């Protein structure tokens, strides 16, 4: 089943919604504004009645896989259950209905929630202060790098390089480049962990920071983290923690204790705020005391039981977002933390690690495991063992979709050929993990007996594999002026009336 676009469903004479009249005597825009300020043709928005609109979106919803219905073992993305109580909390009028420019006295509850969330996150990652302003993980990374840059500059030290492991998330080098740094790649060793020798050879007085996630993107804990921290700090550089993998060790250990100076967190991963089909998220950044002066403005401060926004921060990097961040997501994350408590967060991480190791063991019967275990909260398998059958990681991913599982992350990290990165999370039952492992077993058997069938999957979804190459060609043609079809948007056929 596919669903037409709202624009295609649109009918020229569909009734428009009933809205209040102005009920005041005042001139309209055409009476007062200069003619060349006015719009001449109305925007070509769809015209649909409410019943049609609701059915359209219900049908679209039915085309999606989501955690609510499917196991979503997307490595590095921590797709765990999104508690419905979080949604109820964020919808409370006391949160959803407050204006960002109300007087501080009238939003004490909101400021206190932000302050308490900062305390809780500081306790989880082991830092002195946290800014809640960044809107997403990548935004947090960039915020942290800007602070590190400001720190070095404040000491008259113009450091120009940021080191990033070859297994890092793509956002790391992108965030570093956008902060004005030159990116230097550090190699992984044969055991999947950062190569200390390579790191040492690349550290210099030009190094501003090393960006690291731990456990790394292979799901392996960097055992030599304390040595790494010492090496980095010895050159005067800072250590940055990419919090994508924080779900591995809440209550077990803390990045701050490992020597990380700045730590970003994804509330939409570790702290159960929903991903929304690609956001909104929230990417708070925690820092040690030496970076505190550079935190974005405003910070939330408590004095004599009163909460206030502090804008007097002369060394701050400035604002990174309007207002105070994605407040609604902060409410959800804080609600989760209160419900789980310190004991619950620790159990969540333990269960995440246990589930990953359990699934790794089961899947290891059918796919290659390029690195030795145990893993932490996720593992990376390789479909290399199927290459002589002409079957690739992508085929496994698509075949899983036909079996009602969302696919793991594939072809990442880049250091593993035919990578299949699986993160089960703590909110999937043993029975679900068992059925996923059975599906992998079936698919691998099919790869051996009938590989062509796998190339044709998925068959049971609204569409089969989409030809992205042809789409890219058409976009090129449009951008170069040789086609009228923009591909990136719907366009009314020229012979059709609005």
């Amino acid at each position, binding site marked *: 089943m596919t669903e037409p*676009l709202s624009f295609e469903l649109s009918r020229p004479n569909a009734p428009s919604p009933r809205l209040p009249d102005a009920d005041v005597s005042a001139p309209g825009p055409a009476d007062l504004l200069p003619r060349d300020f006015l719009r001449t043709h109305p925007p070509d928005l*769809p015209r649909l009645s409410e019943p049609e609109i609701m059915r359209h979106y219900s049908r679209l919803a039915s085309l999606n896989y989501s955690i609510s219905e499917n196991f979503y073992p997307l490595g590095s993305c921590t797709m765990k259950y999104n508690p419905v109580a979080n949604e109820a909390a964020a919808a409370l009028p006391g949160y959803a209905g407050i204006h960002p420019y109300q007087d501080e006295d009238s939003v004490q509850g909101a400021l206190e929630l932000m302050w308490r969330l900062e305390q809780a996150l500081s306790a989880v990652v082991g830092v002195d202060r946290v800014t809640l302003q960044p809107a997403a993980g990548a935004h947090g990374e960039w915020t942290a790098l800007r602070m590190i840059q400001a720190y070095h500059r404040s000491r008259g030290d113009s450091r120009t390089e940021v080191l990033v492991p070859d297994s890092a998330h793509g956002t790391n080098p992108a965030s570093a480049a956008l902060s004005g740094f030159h990116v230097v790649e550090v190699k992984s060793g044969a055991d999947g962990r950062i190569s200390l020798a390579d790191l040492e050879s690349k550290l210099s007085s030009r190094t501003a920071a090393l960006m690291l996630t731990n456990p790394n993107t292979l799901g392996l804990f960097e055992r030599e983290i304390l040595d790494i921290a010492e090496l980095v700090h010895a050159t005067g550089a800072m250590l940055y923690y990419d919090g994508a993998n924080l779900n591995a060790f809440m209550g077990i250990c803390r990045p701050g204790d490992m020597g990380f100076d700045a730590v970003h967190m994804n509330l939409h991963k570790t702290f159960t705020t929903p991903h929304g089909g*690609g956001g909104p998220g929230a990417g708070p950044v925690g820092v040690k005391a030496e970076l505190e002066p550079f935190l974005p403005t405003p910070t939330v401060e408590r004095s004599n039981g009163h909460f206030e926004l502090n804008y007097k921060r002369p060394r701050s990097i400035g604002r990174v977002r309007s207002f105070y961040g994605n407040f609604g997501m902060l409410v959800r994350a804080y609600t989760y933390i209160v419900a789980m408590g310190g004991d619950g967060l620790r159990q969540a991480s333990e269960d995440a690690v246990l589930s990953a190791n359990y699934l790794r063991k089961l899947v290891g019967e059918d796919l290659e495991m390029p690195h030795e275990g145990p893993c932490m909260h996720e593992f990376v398998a390789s479909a290399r063992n199927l290459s002589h059958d002409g079957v690739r990681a992508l085929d496994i991913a698509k075949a899983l979709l036909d079996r009602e599982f969302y696919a793991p992350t594939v072809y990442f990290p880049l250091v593993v050929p035919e990578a299949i990165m699986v993160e089960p999370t703590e909110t999937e039952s043993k029975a679900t993990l068992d059925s996923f492992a059975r599906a992998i077993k079936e698919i691998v058997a099919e790869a051996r007996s009938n590989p062509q069938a796998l190339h044709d999957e*998925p068959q049971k979804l609204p569409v089969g594999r989409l030809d992205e190459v042809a789409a890219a060609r058409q976009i090129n043609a449009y951008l170069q002026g040789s086609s009228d079809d*923009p591909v990136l948007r719907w366009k009314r056929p020229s012979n059709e009336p609005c």
Partner: protein
Amino acid sequence: MPYLVHSPEDRAAMLETVGVQSMEDLLVDIPRSLRMESLDLPRGLSELETMAEISSLAARNRVYPDRLTFRGGGVYRRFIPAAVAAVTSKPEFYTAYTPYQAEASQGTLQAIYEFQTLIAELTALDVANASLYDGATAVAEAAMMAHVHTGRDEVLVAGYVHPEYVEVLRTFSDGRGIKVRTGSEPSQKTAAVIFQQPDFLGLLVDARALTAAAHDAGALAIACVDPISLAILAPPGEYGADIAVGEGQQLGLAASFGGPHVGFIACRKDLVRKLPGRLIGAAHDAQGRRGFVLALAAREQHIRREKATSNICTNHSLCALAASVYMTYMGPEGLRQVAEVSFKRAHALAERLTALPGWELAFPEGQFLNEFPVRVPRSPAVLRKLARKGILGGLDVHRWFRQLKGVLTFTCTEVNDPRALDELVAALEA
């Protein structure tokens, strides 16, 4: 424990399958010196207790009714059709991830493709992206595009652009060695002229003249626009702006203390390859069925890494979905009605406010839509008085602009019914 699924028996069975004795055997790679006994946080609570605590904090915030809220400054009260929440609260939408596996994500992909089309239509530009975080980062991202496109290192902020947007622009620019200048005269060094229509005070700027000045200097014109205003005002594409950006909160999103909302960005087609963030395109499968995919991904961080056009990964899809439902619900006539009712009520209010002794328009020559600056005697006392009567009065903009002492901006939309205007004026006269 809430939200956890394993029983002690499950855990024991799983450990046995893995072939280890205890959890400790799985954590052997963590140096002993780093291990914690426990987390320094209170123990978890039942849902009942959790919600009691969260609700008690919420109760310490004062919620002004929509109809008695006259404060805007970038976040506005508008009528939000029930359809919006009914759609965004569908778990198939809100619990899905970024649509990497297109075949299993057609709902999200198509909804965002519709969003891109809606924004492109509204701004009359060629292509819009899948969303950005907010209006402020959208301005900053547009400036970065202009910097890359022109190879120039300065951006010019013309007039009263939202001060927080300018602050964010400065933070972005500092990292990349770009200078942010204020004024209205671009030079040969200027990558872009950035203006807001209507501006932060609610006044209309001469977008055509600013765009022409930018182009004369070889710079791009970046228009930061109010999406609802585009039902009335000439859209950026019509007067030749190269990039349009803006904040989409008014398209069906709650105030929520400033977020999450949604930024949007649209541009001319020759700039599309420099657009930040996600883009959805149409594609076909082997049977010729149309579907939607992440397109032009080669611009993005997960492919291009340090050479990407931006670092954006997670954007604001669900907020973009809300905006799409809102725009689809309204249609062209509904959107125009909302904009016109707001216009008329704001003008009626301006007339009544400036009839109060000592109250005057701060810019008597200025045209506005639904937000306007008034010079008010003893403005702090006025706002306190209104608050006592349960009214959220205008925004004191002196906080950002020294020259605007005593100036409040009042905003009026379709939610401020005529009786609410009466109540506001009566409270001021009392």
